[in-house]
């Protein structure tokens, strides 16, 4: 998280923390373990009232940011979501809301529901193996007269159970097409998946000859590549912030444990072997904060190195964050792998965020591409 916040941002962040502490304490997360949606609609509505879904929406559409950039504000929320392992479709709903706001698609109608928290949206992007590498899209959007017809399978789709609007990214010829599909449209089927996270739910969403009027297309068919890229930027930035929050929670918990837990008559925190591992973890943690904030700032500011920073952050936080979380487990010993202990809540959240929207390896490949372009003599 940023070292310096404006007083408004600080207040906003504190209010978010208060609401999360009140509505989704660890006991509640445990209660939601088998809940089909993973959270109560009332919880989401109250978060929306606070501004969780309005930060990327223009003021003319009823949204607005706290500071100069809504994405920076929203990253503060995402960070606290990670630190609390909080439920709710924060990333996907905001990605959809931002796109609807930017494109003006659908007028005021779908956005109002998202802003008030009475409705939810999700983004159908990823596909089944072997088409599951970062950025791959094969779902077909065919134009037929005044209609479009969707065929394909999307997975994992977050909060597909409960979502009212599905933003589907498909392909029309060489270009990408985005369609806003009502959840109940004929030909759409949703099959829940298993997930590592405690409260985030995912599903396989199948589009079998789903026919919609062409007005459901956001922008023009085959011309959505740039819009999709912007969505990916936002999603990766928010996921990074959330993953760092999970790292912070696990680290703080483990430092406390090291002071409290005695063996051989001395606290764990007095063993040099463990102290040195804590020093490594502290370094990775601060590095994660640094690069996540830099990437978010670059996206928010429209900087040309935004993807380089995003991929750097996604790769680093994914890899080093997993090392941190598993070392926290190791230092806890047996209790660290039990359900009773809370550590796994953060391990789950980080693990989820690492695997979604490109693995560390996917992002290293992207970095190699970017580096090669930069170093090629002009």
């Amino acid at each position: 998280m940023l070292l310096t916040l404006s007083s408004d941002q600080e207040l906003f962040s504190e209010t978010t923390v208060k609401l999360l502490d009140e509505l989704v304490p660890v006991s509640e997360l445990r209660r939601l373990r088998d809940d089909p949606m993973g959270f109560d609609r009332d919880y989401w509505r109250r978060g929306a009232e606070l501004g969780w879904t309005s930060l990327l929406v223009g003021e003319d559409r009823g949204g607005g940011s706290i500071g100069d950039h809504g994405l920076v504000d929203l990253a503060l929320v995402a960070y606290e979501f990670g630190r609390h392992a909080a439920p709710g479709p924060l990333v996907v709903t905001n990605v959809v809301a931002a796109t609807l706001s930017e494109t003006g698609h659908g007028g005021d109608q779908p956005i109002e529901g998202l802003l008030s928290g009475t409705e939810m949206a999700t983004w159908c992007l990823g596909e089944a193996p072997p088409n599951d590498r970062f950025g791959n899209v094969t779902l077909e959007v065919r134009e037929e007269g005044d209609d479009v017809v969707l065929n394909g399978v999307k997975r994992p789709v977050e909060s597909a159970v409960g979502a009212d609007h599905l933003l589907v990214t498909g392909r029309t010829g060489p270009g990408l097409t985005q369609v806003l599909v009502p959840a109940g449209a004929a030909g759409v089927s949703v099959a829940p998946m298993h997930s590592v996270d405690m409260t985030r739910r995912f599903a396989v969403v199948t589009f079998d000859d789903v026919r919609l009027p062409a007005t459901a297309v956001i922008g023009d068919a085959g011309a959505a590549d740039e819009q999709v890229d912007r969505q990916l930027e936002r999603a990766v930035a928010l996921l990074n912030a959330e993953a760092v929050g999970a790292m912070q929670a696990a680290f703080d918990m483990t430092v406390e444990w090291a002071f409290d837990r005695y063996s051989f008559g001395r606290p764990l925190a007095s063993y040099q072997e463990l102290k040195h591992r804590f020093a490594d973890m502290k370094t990775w943690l601060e590095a994660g904060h640094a690069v996540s904030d830099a990437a978010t700032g670059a996206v928010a500011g429209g900087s040309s190195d935004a993807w380089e920073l995003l991929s750097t952050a996604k790769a680093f936080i994914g890899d080093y964050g997993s090392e941190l979380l598993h070392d926290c487990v190791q230092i806890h010993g047996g209790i660290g792998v039990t359900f009773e202990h809370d550590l796994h809540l953060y391990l789950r959240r980080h693990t989820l965020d690492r695997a979604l929207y490109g693995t560390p390896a996917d992002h290293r490949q992207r970095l190699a591409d970017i580096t090669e372009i930069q170093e090629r003599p002009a």
Partner: protein
Amino acid sequence: MTTQDVEDISTFRDRARAFVRGNLRPADSNQLVGPLRNERSDDEELAVVAREREVQRMLFDAGLAGICFPREYGGQGLTPEHQRALNEELDGYEYPSRIQAPTLSPCAAVLLDFGTEEQKLRHLPAILKGEEIWMQFLSEPSGGSDVAGALTSAVRDGEEWVLNGSKIWTTGAWWSDWGLCLARTNWDVPKHRGLTVFILPIRQPGLDVHRIEMLNGSKEFCQEFMTDVRVPDSDRVGDIDDGWTVGTRWMFHERMLTNSPLVTVPAGTTHGGGATPMAAVARDAGRGDDPYVRDLVGEARMLEIVDRELRRRIGEGIATGAMPDQSAAIGRLFVGVTAARMRTIAFEIAGAAGAAWTDDDGELAFSGSDFLMRQVSCIGGGTTEMARNVISERVLGMPRERSQDRDVAFRDVPRSASSRP
């Protein structure tokens, strides 16, 4: 000074840009390699040093040296933000790398913190003009990490001190001018309470500079032998026997490395050590399309950027007080480990050319010997183990390691066999 006197950033940036583009040569990555490779003759090295002094003087004359040093000592009295702007404008151009660390930080930084008015007026302008290159006379052969265990002795003789002992791991002492020296002035008190800091010219009778040959043939690291070197009391820095107060701050400045607002380092400079563009290594290896090699190239770029952003965060945190000064050790640990990893990556990409190469192998040529020297980044400037101690004990507040040298007279502290009297 009132705020109106401070040049605004964009005017400053324009001025810096005009100077840099109009006067400086493009960066030559080979010049930055420094002591970690053995590829230059002594004459060539001396020519590089002379050019760096010249560039430093040009920066001084252009009002671009010592951005964050007070004006009364030849600096510009500007802010870290100005320094950052200069660093950004210098990206891709030559700069006086050998005058940054240790001359500007920690040596000049320590003078700023503890020097007398006379010392500051005499040395800081000369440093900023490139006339004085400084070395840290800190480590000793008897122990690297335990710097407070210094055995070099200073004995008072009227208005002078007489120094005897040996210092080690000074980089380029053979072409340097002044030393900042930690010495023992009292053997009858615990180790931290009997130290004093002095400054002394390196080229003088009684001070022999011996060049150490490293495993790769480089001879830039030196060891100094001091025999009855006389230092006037006016060249003492800080109080007698209070050298550890100076030393603590000294080591903070050392850990700040290029995070320090007192040093000038082009923004794009790779701190991964060796400044090797990994994509160029992959290209010269003909393996630019190999997915595994691309993974390594991506990792290298990732580490460079994370290092840069981490340094920025720590610099900001320390400057605003959001982080304790000791957090500088976090940056030190990361850059050490990262630089070592960079060596491994380059060596891995190079394949068999890492073991045997020709002069035509481009970026591959040094990957093997660089790999042999890999741990330098985790040793020089305070080991990464010490950084881990500092982070866990001073940043996280964990219990200190037990030691056998507290609350006993230093002369009674157990020593290595080789340094017993």
